[in-house]
């Protein structure tokens, strides 16, 4: 019978700490926010549900990020770096053909978000393969730096993009307390990265679009990242684990050999 080294059940203390932000969010929702101060023209009372969600989710992900057992071993770091270098080469290749391809397919915003998922793959892949705190951000950021150093159209602005998109995926994995790495968490992590990247795009590159087109762009970015980055990275992780290349990593231990 095979034995795993990781614990399978959540300890009670962790659950208690995680319950705090959830309770705070529920409290906000139950009590409601005062109507008088307003944010961007909307009275606070109308934003109760959103505020409750932000508090609950943000608190949970902070708890996850802080309490995750995440000592990075040297092999984790080196494999993450290898993935980042491959990701950087991949980014560079995609960046070179991005303009011609999107114009050939007559993709203008908001529909150019259809291929946005390609930019999130290394981050999600890093998070799924390494399974430690900060892996998604590290891989996506270093890949963006390498893409910038190899020379592309957008210069060093890709570094900022890499950081924020990586944080999007990291946010989701932290929310799940770094314990779930199956297909559903992968898709959610991809969606998180897509959300971050989409929002960044509409603020920096396309501020002129109408509100509806902006929302459509972000929604398409989320969908594309969930599929391409989420499912794609998950399938790639599984294929890598099957070759035994991940045997020294946490993700390889999950694929037990007899």
């Amino acid at each position, binding site marked *: 019978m095979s034995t795993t080294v990781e614990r399978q059940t959540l300890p009670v203390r962790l659950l208690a700490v995680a319950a705090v932000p959830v309770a705070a969010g529920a409290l906000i929702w139950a009590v409601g926010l005062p109507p008088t101060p307003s944010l961007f023209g909307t009275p606070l009372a109308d934003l109760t549900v959103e505020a409750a969600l932000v508090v609950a989710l943000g608190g949970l992900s902070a708890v996850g990020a802080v309490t995750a057992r995440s000592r990075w*071993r*040297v*092999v984790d*770091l*080196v*494999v*993450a*770096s*290898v*993935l*980042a*270098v*491959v990701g950087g*080469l991949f980014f560079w290749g995609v960046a*070179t053909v991005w*303009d*011609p391809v999107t*114009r050939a397919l007559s993709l203008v915003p908001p529909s150019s978000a259809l291929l946005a998922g390609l930019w999130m793959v290394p981050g999600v892949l890093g998070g799924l393969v390494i399974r430690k705190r900060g892996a998604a951000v*590290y891989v996506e950021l*270093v890949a963006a730096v*390498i893409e*910038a*150093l*190899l*020379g*592309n*159209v*957008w*210069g*060093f*602005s890709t*570094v*900022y993009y890499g950081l924020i998109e990586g944080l999007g995926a990291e946010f989701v994995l932290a929310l799940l307390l770094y314990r779930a790495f199956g297909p559903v968490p992968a898709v959610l992590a991809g969606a998180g990265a897509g959300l971050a990247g989409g929002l960044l795009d509409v*603020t*920096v*590159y396309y*501020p002129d679009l109408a509100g509806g087109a902006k929302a459509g762009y972000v929604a398409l970015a989320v969908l594309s990242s969930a599929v391409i980055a989420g499912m794609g990275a998950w399938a*790639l992780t599984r*294929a*890598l684990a099957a*070759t035994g*290349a*991940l*045997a*020294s990593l946490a993700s390889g231990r999950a694929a037990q050999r007899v």
Partner: protein
Amino acid sequence: MIRPGAPGPPDPPAAGAAPPGRGAIARTNPVAKLLVSLLISLVLLLTVDVVTAAAALALECLALPWCGLGARALARRAGALLVAGGSAGLVAALVGVDGGAQLAAVGPVTVTQGSLLSGLAVVARILAIGLPGVVLVATTDPTDLADGLGQVLRLPATPVLAALAALRLFGVLAQEWQDLAHARRARGLGGGGPVGRVRDVLGQVFALLVIAVRRGTVLAMAMESRGFGAAARRTWARPSRLRPGDLALLAGGAAVALTATAAGVAAGTWRLLLG
């Protein structure tokens, strides 16, 4: 500061290694060049207008003679940038927002003063953002950059060195890519429509990834056996410090950014993209 003993006569640089430039800018600390690139990117990212971008580009070109790059080397490295910038600018000129006097018309496509200006702005902006990066890569050795990041910017040494080692690992993999391509032909793969080709290339990329990850695992073991990752404190064999020349470069980069922005504001064309 104790300079390490002079090395022997250097071998001719291998293909892919960055030859040290002879110019003053080329010999500055790589961190200074990196910060200048980041700063100029950030400032130029905030707006798309001809005056700002052209001013920044002009100022950067003024500094080019000190970069120590020959014209041919520069053209080769900046070539991709020129092509991408040129095509993006052309498209912006043709299908961009029209405004002002109409200059030319080819069927439904019109080139007006407004769209031409916006096309020029796009080209200038792409070149202005990309040029410092090109100089950085052409005149910097990755090991020196890593030394700078660890010692000057005090980034944690372990991730920086791991990334450097992974980059070195990849230099070797170019030969493996060739072998993989030959092996695939020998197995009967290849040739069979565009879809088949894409699948074959993806398979080749996957095989390279497997080989890279495996080799990375062995590399991690070798690095760990030499003490990597065991202690927080480490020393640096190649000291990297910011010297007056580096600070001058940083000041110069800030000056370029500020001057370009001021020019744009003065001309009235500066428009913040965010918000």
